[in-house]
């Protein structure tokens, strides 16, 4: 494990262990409920549709419970999952990525990708606009030719592409 340099505080390992175990347990509960709805018994022609999810759900709840108790019992002396400092770095990538994912619905993948590359190069890399714009444009044009024209795979498009007649 790499040493956590600098930034003494952050999210503790224990908290994340507990949360993830709870999340998985919740998934298990959902499966149990769904399995019950579909029927977890025996039909005249074999197990019903809910049988498999029902039992998988029960096993998942059980396994998560063990993981939860293990995490609760183990005293890791405040070992960090991630320090605030590092979390900030991660969010610098994750937040733009989420905005990118949502933006694709509205402006299509090409415009969103160009904006993402620009943002990363300006914000994270400290490049000037004069360096970033050509790179972003080149990448997007390359993607366009490879997918739309060469492989004939249509990717999501927005108003800009429509205005250009695609």
């Amino acid at each position, binding site marked *: 494990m*790499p040493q956590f340099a600098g930034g003494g505080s952050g999210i503790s*390992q224990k908290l*994340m*262990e507990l949360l*993830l*175990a709870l999340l*998985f347990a919740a998934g*298990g509960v959902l*499966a149990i409920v*769904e399995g019950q709805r*579909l029927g977890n018994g*025996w039909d005249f*022609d*074999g*197990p*019903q*549709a*809910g*049988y*498999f*999810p029902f039992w*998988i*759900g029960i*096993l*998942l709840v059980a*396994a*998560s419970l063990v*993981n939860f108790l*293990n995490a609760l019992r183990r005293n890791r002396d405040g070992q960090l*999952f*991630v320090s605030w400092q*590092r979390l900030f*770095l*991660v969010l*610098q*990538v*994750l937040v733009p*990525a989420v905005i*990118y*994912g*949502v933006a*694709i619905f509205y402006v299509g*993948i090409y415009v969103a*990708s160009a904006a*993402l*590359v620009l*943002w*990363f*190069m300006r914000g*994270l*890399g400290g*490049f000037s606009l004069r360096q970033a714009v050509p*790179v972003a444009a080149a*990448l997007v044009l390359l*993607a366009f030719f490879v*997918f739309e024209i060469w*492989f004939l795979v*249509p*990717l*999501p498009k927005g108003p800009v592409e429509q205005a250009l007649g695609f």
Partner: protein
Amino acid sequence: MTELAALFHGFSIALAPHNLLLMTIGIVLGVLIGVLPGLGGANGVAILLPLTFTLEPVSAIILLSCIYWGALFGGAITSILFNIPGEPWSVATTFDGYPLAQRGRAAEALTAAFTSSFLGAFAAILVITFVSPLVAGFALKFGPAEFFAVMFLAFASFIGLSSAAPFKTMAAMLVGFLLAGVGLDTVTGQLRGTFGSTELMRGFHFLVVVIGLFGISEILQSIEEGLSFKGRDGRIDLKAVVRTWAEMLKHKAIILRSALIGCWMGITPAGATPASFMSYGVAKRLSPHGAEFGRGRIEGVIAPETAAHAAGTSALLPMLALGIPGSPTAAVLLGGLIMWGLQPGPMLFVEQKDFVWGLIASMYLGNVVGFLIVLVAVPWFAAILRIPFPIIAALILVVCAIGAYTVNNAAFDIVLMLIFGVLGYVMKKLDYPLAPLVLALVLGDRTEQSFRQALLMSEGSFTIFFANPLVASIMIAGFVMLFWPLVARLRSRRTGGARAAAQAP
């Protein structure tokens, strides 16, 4: 020898010019993928899978499997030159590879890594050539109960052999099963787990999940570790190659042993990463120079590389012969088979001879081609890491998004990919293994179906899983694997206690 005849026929397919071209493209792409952090064998193959539908299945699998070989080779380059493992299975290579490079012996370390990768893969391909037809022939007698038993054994071995906490492995696997169940139930035609969402009716496609779990999470982790690339010069001249080969002759035993470890760990679904660590550990323990390991012994490069490549390659054996993949990448390839309309499993050897033997022949050729390409082109591949990380990260994100979108032509899948990216990041940091999740997701439907078919045949009685010696012994082996962590823990507690008592004065 029918295998040899079939193999030569396979060579005639693999040697077709367009297949050779695809092979070369695949290797180059694969090395690129292996070098770049954030793109690995599994999600590299996953991203390119939707683009292969226009190809013939055999050409498609040649392209994709060559990406896999390339990624196996590529991981070593960054480990040795930059001390950054491009792939998890090349972590062990950094232990001695990077110190060697620091002392100006990068060329030797790289030559040793590539040569031993090649030898490891070659050993595994020989095993595949001669063993998989036997396994497939044997498996032709399998009914649904036997198939379920084999799947059970595969999943139980994950729990038994994994280095992670057994209940974490189990939880990851069960999540995979649950995700696999979402969508249309093929037996009854009912919708399951969609909770009224039309987007979920398609279910969770394993490609989307793989791209998120392995690709996005990797970018998040790379950025967190604040990568700074300071590489060594990686040019290889002929003299260094000859000198390294001469030195490697002295380590025949290590190569053979590591290849065996690798083949074994690849066929049982332990995978390339544990194989490389185990092989490194064994080499260190058995070497008279064990104490110098970690400071730049060439054996410390040879052992993990041989094993990782042998394991990565032999992971395709159970995929081909039984339809059960031995590694996440093999799982993605198996998903590819299904998407190309081929039924994985022992019948492949009967019905799709051209496909199977074309693939096996391409393994021989692909590894030769890959070996030559990496030896010649190391400096160029290493130069890629000099591209600033923000550009690489943005590029990988865009490539992942396109890959996720093209699976179903659904923008919703890009959102799913991001969610799985965060999940993968958290799971990795908490030591939950990702491979069982992917394997369960790919095999979930088939596992459930064979389970239901078997129970259908027995009219609901579980005795069918112990009805004949074959199925019973597979099931029992599965239970042994399942409870292995418990047994090992009890045993170590007992011997640990005994040792403590012996040490007491």
